[in-house]
């Protein structure tokens, strides 16, 4: 509550967006956005569930137990529930209605089995798929429910299964156990009942968090027997899904203790660094926050899904129109002919119009195959197969972590081929999120990468690979005092926690950067060994010394630095400070000897690189390319001594190599730098300052600002020691992937919670930004948008709505632009903030009717303005080649994605690895999670997951493109084949009195979609590839067909339908011509209905199977087998069904006895079939050939030159070795954006040796609690 109020006020106060802070926490907006329970008085909400005294067994009944259930069906409910589920789909319902229609004898025009058999197959396939899914869920549930932990029963801890745990149970957890339910931490083996947990499963953050038990429970609930008799009473909030909020009260021993999220261990966390802990179960099973968070998966559908549905509706309308037309025809025919045809007398005196009406339904049934019954199930099967191909892809398998790619949803594959925008998280997605101490600059001397032997140092952990012997010499000799000082500072100035296990030191850092620095110091001989609340012990090159810590001036995002004030054993007081170069420079002593050198090291300018190059240009210019390839290998064999960079100049040959000595230059692409400095403080000066410090730290209002001010006073006149550089390494292949994707016309937006500088830095590193990119920041954008708004308003007026929006670019064309915008600016620009304010205002004064109307009006105006502004912003951002949003909250990430989704109508993909990306992943059309890290939440809510960012190019350019092409081809063919098949009935009706006579045998209608034409198209949908995966990756331009919906749209759909219509005409009218007069070879008349049906059916089967053969561009033996197999199957089944034997068994079910053998004996009929097939297919071939010759598509061209390209491949790949980025000046700082453990350290609660009064600030919210303890 308190914190919220505070942030709101600050929010309203500052008028200018602050680039550094993350605008607001997600929860605040959640209150606004999600309509949760109205804010009733807290009191009313409180007594909702209780965990009462555990000794009373009868009260346990009816409590939620801890078993979880994610499965949908059990043995008995499977059939009814699954059928119910399936009939909720419109398509299935449609076929059910058809089936019912068919049972009405007056209108039944087809045998009952024609629809039933395919329908059952469709239902069956779907049911089997659901069953397999559900069985997997059953297994998973069982595995989790049967995990064990210790629960107090009858006064003793006993092993119990998770599912047996109930609310109110006291449980014991050991180190590395998963927490089975949401529990209240009662006590732990650690001092003050501290308990470390890793919340990776919940929010993806891998650094440890600490939870602390209440003082009272810590004191009295350590022993088994005391735990067994614990009789507290807890009131708490309703189960909800907020991970970081908990409110409740513990009533015990006639006192009440407030509970907050710091006392709660959530299900899914892992206990770390704590031998054991005890807890009381508060929420179990489905009530836990983790379970409340899961299962809310939004059902995503693809663009093609929507399109397909509309097409099915279109077809349905066509079906109704056709049926109605034919019904009218029938009524007319009956009136003209039928009524006079005595032989048709039906015994009923129905009027022609009534007969027409009946025939309408009859035709609905006959023509029902226009809407393909197996369409949906086939689409599902294809997508399932494509998903498996993704799972199986070895080139997306990350061997190091044994993580294969995984398609977690099987319904979105073809959408992968249509991506326009990618929204990427930075940390852990683009970068590895592993910090390594790379280089340092001490006293102006740069120590860089040279292999160093750390064996002289007993504390070396053997993990740091640092390459500079000279530095070691410097440390060991001690000639240069600054060097030792430098590493001492690293060892002392931090908020890292240490944990000593079997003589092994384990550091727990709030940010990986800090951990890397302390580990580096340890490897260089300055090992941080232990700390108490006010001492810190360092091993300095083997000698242990303990320093008294006088103050920790913690990091925050304004200060961008942290300092520590220590008293040396000798009694000197020193301040050590590390921080971002910009803030440190301001605070340096004027007489700073090494400032310039250090600055130079940080400011490696482009010009100097070029100068270094000049002398070598001449040499490289004249080298043949082959030679250069060769030379590169030679250089590489020199090891790390030289770095090579490629500069592309518009000369011939276009590639000029730039060489420089890697040691000369400090900042390389992804180094996060930090300046270190120190100062000596006089005793008197310190005492004075300390008084102010004490006063500030107990200030009741604006404590943080007061502290900052005090800190500022002491952090001045610093003496620069040097700088460190930590590498936040990019994942492998990130720049290549990004350039590939942007060549495929995919725009990449980076959304990160990181700072602007870091984000910009990464932008350069992954070549999203280049030196010739003009970068626009929030201010520029705001100005641009402002003028645009003004213009629009001026132009607008009354007629604004009628003027079509003209698209005018924000920027002049040409040139490369990038947008870097922070979360605060984003709010400013998108007017998020203002609505928030007005909301608050509104809540405060709702008065008269008049006023209310005014308010709604102004609200509407504001909405319109906001929309306009958003539209403008999206337009503007989309003009930029790259967009980087930094300092954005998870909510904003989702908002940005949503904006693009809404205003650009483009397909979006979000990729991320952490819990903060979940919103965005769920919002985007396709969410991709980076797996293989500890955190699983992003992966759990994603649609696809894999281990490395670089696999994205394969997922999109290969799998996505193939899936899209396959699906489009599949759908086009599917509509075609059903039209070709069904419309023959239509043409035939002109010759049979519109009587709904079918042109085929009933069995043929039954099996056509099921057996005779399904397999080849399914296989094409699974296996087809126009160009190989290598070529797909090499020519990203091929990807645009999907983005522009070129392969499946309404035009293509109608072309397919037209193709189907023409084919059906040919299929009917050529046999018709042939049958007009004919008689058989032996004089018998083969012009009977059954022979006619067989002729058309045979021609149809051959035509559609050859047609799919033409459509297939990747003929494997399976395809060939299926195509010829389908034709063979048709003839085989037909001859069986027309055989004497089956007729003797079922005379009325198989009426076509002998037709196949009699009809297909006639050469005349074969000639008819051949002609029909030829007329159907030859024009297709001609048109394809002509269009390929006249307007060859990109893919056609590449296919044409497949061989030549393959030969080139080798050569190209070697050339790629050279492509590396220019190194440029980038500076950043090495803090994560959350405060460290300073509060905890100064609180002293984690320190074993002695208890100290709790005057250290733990958190604002614990004030109440402190009072309780003290009382």
């Amino acid at each position: 509550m308190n914190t919220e109020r505070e942030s709101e006020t600050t929010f309203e106060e500052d008028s200018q967006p602050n680039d550094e802070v993350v605008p607001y926490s997600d929860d605040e907006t959640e209150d606004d956005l999600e309509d949760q329970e109205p804010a009733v008085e807290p009191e009313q909400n409180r007594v909702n569930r209780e965990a009462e005294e555990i000794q009373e067994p009868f009260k346990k009944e009816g409590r939620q137990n801890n078993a979880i259930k994610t499965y949908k069906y059990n043995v008995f409910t499977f059939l009814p529930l699954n059928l119910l589920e399936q009939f909720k789909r419109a398509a299935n319902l449609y076929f059910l209605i058809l089936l019912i229609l068919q049972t009405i004898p007056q209108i039944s025009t087809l045998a009952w089995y024609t629809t039933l058999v395919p329908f059952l197959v469709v239902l069956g396939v779907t049911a089997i798929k659901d069953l397999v899914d559900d069985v997997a869920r059953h297994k998973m549930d069982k595995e989790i429910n049967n995990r064990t932990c210790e629960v107090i029963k009858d006064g003793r801890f006993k092993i119990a299964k998770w599912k047996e745990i109930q609310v109110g149970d006291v449980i014991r957890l050991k180190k590395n156990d998963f927490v089975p339910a949401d529990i209240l931490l009662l006590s732990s083996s650690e001092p003050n009942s501290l308990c470390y947990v890793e919340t990776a499963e919940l929010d993806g953050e891998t650094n440890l968090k600490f939870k602390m038990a209440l003082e009272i429970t810590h004191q009295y609930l350590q022993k088994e027997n005391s735990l067994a008799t614990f009789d507290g009473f807890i009131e708490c909030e309703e189960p909800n899904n907020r991970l970081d909020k908990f409110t409740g009260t513990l009533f015990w021993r006639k006192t009440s203790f407030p509970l907050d999220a710091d006392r709660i261990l959530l299900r899914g966390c892992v206990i770390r660094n704590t031998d054991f802990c005890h807890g009381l179960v508060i929420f179990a099973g489905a009530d836990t926050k983790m379970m409340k968070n899961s299962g809310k998966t939004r059902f995503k559908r693809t663009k093609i899904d929507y399109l397909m549905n509309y097409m099915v509706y279109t077809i349905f309308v066509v079906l109704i129109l056709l049926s109605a037309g034919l019904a009218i025809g029938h009524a007319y025919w009956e009136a003209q002919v039928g009524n006079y045809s005595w032989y048709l007398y039906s015994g009923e005196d129905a009027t022609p119009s009534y007969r027409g009406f009946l025939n309408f339904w009859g035709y609905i049934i006959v023509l029902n195959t226009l809407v393909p019954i197996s369409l949906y199930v086939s689409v599902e099967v294809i997508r399932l197969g494509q998903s498996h191909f993704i799972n199986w892809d070895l080139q997306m398998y990350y061997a190091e972590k044994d993580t294969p790619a995984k398609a977690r949803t099987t319904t979105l594959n073809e959408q992968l081929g249509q991506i326009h925008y990618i929204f990427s998280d930075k940390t852990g997605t683009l970068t590895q999120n592993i910090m390594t101490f790379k280089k340092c600059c001490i006293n102006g001397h740069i120590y860089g990468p040279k292999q160093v032997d750390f064996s002289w140092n007993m504390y070396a952990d053997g993990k740091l690979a640092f390459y500079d012997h000279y530095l070691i010499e410097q440390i060991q000799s001690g000639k240069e005092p600054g060097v030792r000082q430098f590493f001492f500072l690293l060892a002392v100035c931090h908020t890292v926690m240490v944990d000593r296990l079997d003589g092994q030191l384990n550091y727990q850092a709030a940010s990986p950067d800090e951990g890397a620095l302390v580990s580096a110091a340890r490897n260089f001989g300055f090992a941080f060994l232990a700390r108490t609340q006010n001492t810190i012990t360092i091993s300095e090159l083997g000698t242990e010394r303990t320093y008294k810590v006088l103050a920790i001036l913690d990091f925050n995002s304004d200060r961008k630095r942290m300092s520590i004030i220590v008293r040396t054993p000798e009694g000197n007081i020193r301040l050590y400070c590390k921080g971002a170069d910009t803030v440190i420079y301001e605070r340096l002593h004027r007489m700073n000897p090494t400032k310039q050198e250090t600055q130079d090291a940080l400011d490696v300018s482009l010009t100097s690189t070029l100068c270094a190059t000049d002398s070598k240009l001449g040499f490289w210019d004249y080298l043949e390319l082959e030679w250069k390839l060769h030379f590169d290998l030679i250089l590489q064999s020199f090891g790390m001594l030289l770095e090579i960079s490629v500069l592309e100049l518009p000369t011939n040959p276009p590639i000029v190599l730039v060489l420089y000595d890697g040691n000369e230059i400090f900042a390389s692409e992804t180094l996060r730098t930090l300046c270190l400095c120190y100062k000596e403080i006089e005793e008197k000066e310190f005492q004075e300052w300390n008084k102010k410090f004490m006063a500030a730290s107990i200030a009741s209002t604006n404590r943080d600002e007061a502290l900052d001010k005090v800190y500022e006073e002491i952090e001045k006149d610093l003496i620069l020691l040097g700088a460190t550089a930590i590498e936040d390494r990019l994942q492998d292949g990130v720049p290549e992937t990004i350039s590939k994707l942007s060549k495929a016309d995919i725009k990449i937006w980076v959304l990160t919670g990181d700072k602007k500088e870091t984000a910009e830095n990464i932008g350069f590193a992954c070549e999203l930004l280049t030196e010739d990119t003009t970068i626009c920041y929030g201010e520029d954008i705001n100005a641009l948008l402002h003028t645009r708004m003004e213009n629009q308003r001026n132009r607008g007026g009354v007629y604004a709505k009628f003027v079509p929006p003209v698209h005018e670019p924000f920027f002049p064309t040409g040139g490369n632009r990038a947008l870097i915008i922070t979360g605060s600016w984003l709010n400013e620009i998108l007017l998020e903030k203002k609505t928030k304010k007005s909301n608050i205002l509104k809540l405060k004064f709702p008065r008269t009717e008049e006023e209310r109307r005014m308010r709604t009006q102004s609200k509407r105006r504001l909405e319109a303005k906001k929309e306009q502004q958003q539209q403008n912003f999206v337009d503007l951002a989309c003009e930029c080649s790259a967009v980087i949003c930094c300092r954005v909250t998870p909510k904003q990430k989702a908002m940005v994605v949503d904006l693009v989704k809404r205003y650009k109508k483009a397909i979006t993909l979000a990729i991320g690895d952490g819990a903060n990306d979940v919103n965005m992943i769920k919002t985007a059309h396709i969410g991709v999670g980076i797996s293989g890290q500890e955190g699983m939440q992003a992966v759990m809510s994603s649609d696809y997951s894999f281990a490395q960012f670089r696999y994205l190019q394969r997922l999109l350019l290969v799998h996505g493109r193939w899936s899209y092409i396959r699906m489009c081809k599949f759908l086009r063919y599917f509509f075609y084949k059903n039209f070709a098949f069904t419309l023959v009935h239509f043409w035939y009706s002109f010759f049979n009195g519109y009587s709904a006579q079918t042109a085929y045998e009933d069995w043929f209608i039954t099996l056509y979609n099921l057996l005779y034409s399904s397999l080849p198209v399914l296989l094409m949908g699974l296996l087809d590839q126009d160009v190989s995966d290598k070529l797909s990756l090499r020519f990203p331009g091929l990807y645009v067909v999907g983005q522009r919906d070129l392969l499946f749209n309404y035009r293509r759909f109608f072309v397919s339908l037209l193709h189907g219509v023409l084919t059906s005409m040919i299929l009917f009218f050529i046999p018709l011509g042939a049958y007009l007069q004919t008689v058989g070879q032996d004089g018998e008349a083969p012009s009977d209905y059954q022979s006619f049906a067989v002729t058309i059916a045979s021609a149809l089967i051959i035509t559609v199977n050859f047609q799919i053969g033409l459509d297939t561009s990747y003929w494997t033996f399976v395809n060939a087998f299926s195509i010829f197999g389908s034709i063979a199957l048709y003839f085989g089944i037909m001859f069986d069904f027309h055989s004497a034997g089956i007729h003797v068994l079922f005379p009325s079910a198989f009426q076509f006895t002998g037709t196949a053998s009699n009809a297909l004996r006639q050469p005349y009929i074969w000639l008819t079939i051949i002609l029909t097939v030829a007329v159907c297919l030859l024009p297709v071939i001609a048109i394809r050939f002509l269009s390929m010759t006249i307007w060859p598509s990109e893919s056609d061209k590449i296919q044409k030159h497949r061989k030549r390209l393959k030969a080139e491949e080798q050569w190209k790949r070697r050339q790629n070795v050279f492509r590396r980025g220019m190194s440029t000046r980038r500076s950043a700082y090495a803090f994560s954006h959350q405060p460290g453990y300073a509060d905890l350290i100064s609180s002293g609660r984690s320190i074993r040796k002695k208890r100290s009064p709790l005057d250290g600030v733990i958190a604002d919210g614990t004030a109440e609690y402190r009072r309780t303890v003290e009382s």
Partner: protein
Amino acid sequence: MTWSATARGAHQPDNTAFTQQRLPAWQPLLSASIALPLFFCAGLAFIGLGLGLYYSSNGIKELEYDYTGDLGTSNCSVCAAAGQGRSPPPRCSCAWYFSLPELFQGPVYLYYELTNFYQNYRRYGVSRDDEQLSGLPSALRHPANECAPYQLSAAGLPIAPCGAIANSLFNDSFSLWHQRRAGGPYVEVPLDRTGIAWWTDYHVKFRNPPLVNGSLALAFQGTAPPPNWHRPVYDLSTDPNNTGFINQDFVVWMRTAALPTFRKLYARIRQGNYSTGLPRGAYRVNITYNYPVRAFGGHKLIIFSSISWMGGKNPFLGIAYLVVGSLCILMGFVMLVVYIRYQDQNDEDEDEE
């Protein structure tokens, strides 16, 4: 093998050609070297076939006569007029005289043709009981519902054969007489009426019910003939192999036609002197005129036709082949021209790239 097995991660996908989508495949391209020869060859082949079909169709002789008697054009108009509006029409006969100046090359087939007769009308087409026709005694007594309104007679007896198709059995009959010399006597030309149905129909699909005491009539006892029939089904012929459900006229009729204009085989002329064809001379066809067609505007025709390897006379297919073949060749040339024209341009494009 073993080393890879040990080095593999637990979740590593299989490295097979199928899972990696590397199945060996043939990727045919619709190149000029395939398309152009295809069109030229197909065109030539089709023209060849078309010529063959055309000439063999032209070589077939046909002689047809419309005996509906609509406008008093023939002597059957008397019968037609007599039958007008009366049901059942009275027995009537008429004749068609024709002469052949030369030998009508045999074997000669005699067909009747009906026009505007919708045997392919759906409800007409299903109005039969195949179980009954295949001789199942149960179905004989209980005809299928599809047969309605010809399922049960007015007296409530099951109709055998039931249904509208059987009821509308074509019941005109023809006999052919030949006058060798002018003024000479007419000699009856033997008509072979047995081999006119499909073997499978005659032997499999249509079976008489099991005889009762060796009598077919007793087997059909308790059934009624279709209302339009003058004779019960077991009396259709005196030949025991051609009566009942296996009467060939009946079997031929029951094989419904695809289109509203259809021919059905009536008889073959292949016996005695007529095995080589019909010699020159005058002929008379005696027609028993029973079947009413004028009510629905239909026509009845009688046709003598010879046969070639491709069946009867039908110029459609030959012409269609010729047309398609020529179009193929034409298209082939168009494609060739386009190919030559654009090939250069494409090459230039690539050079520019």
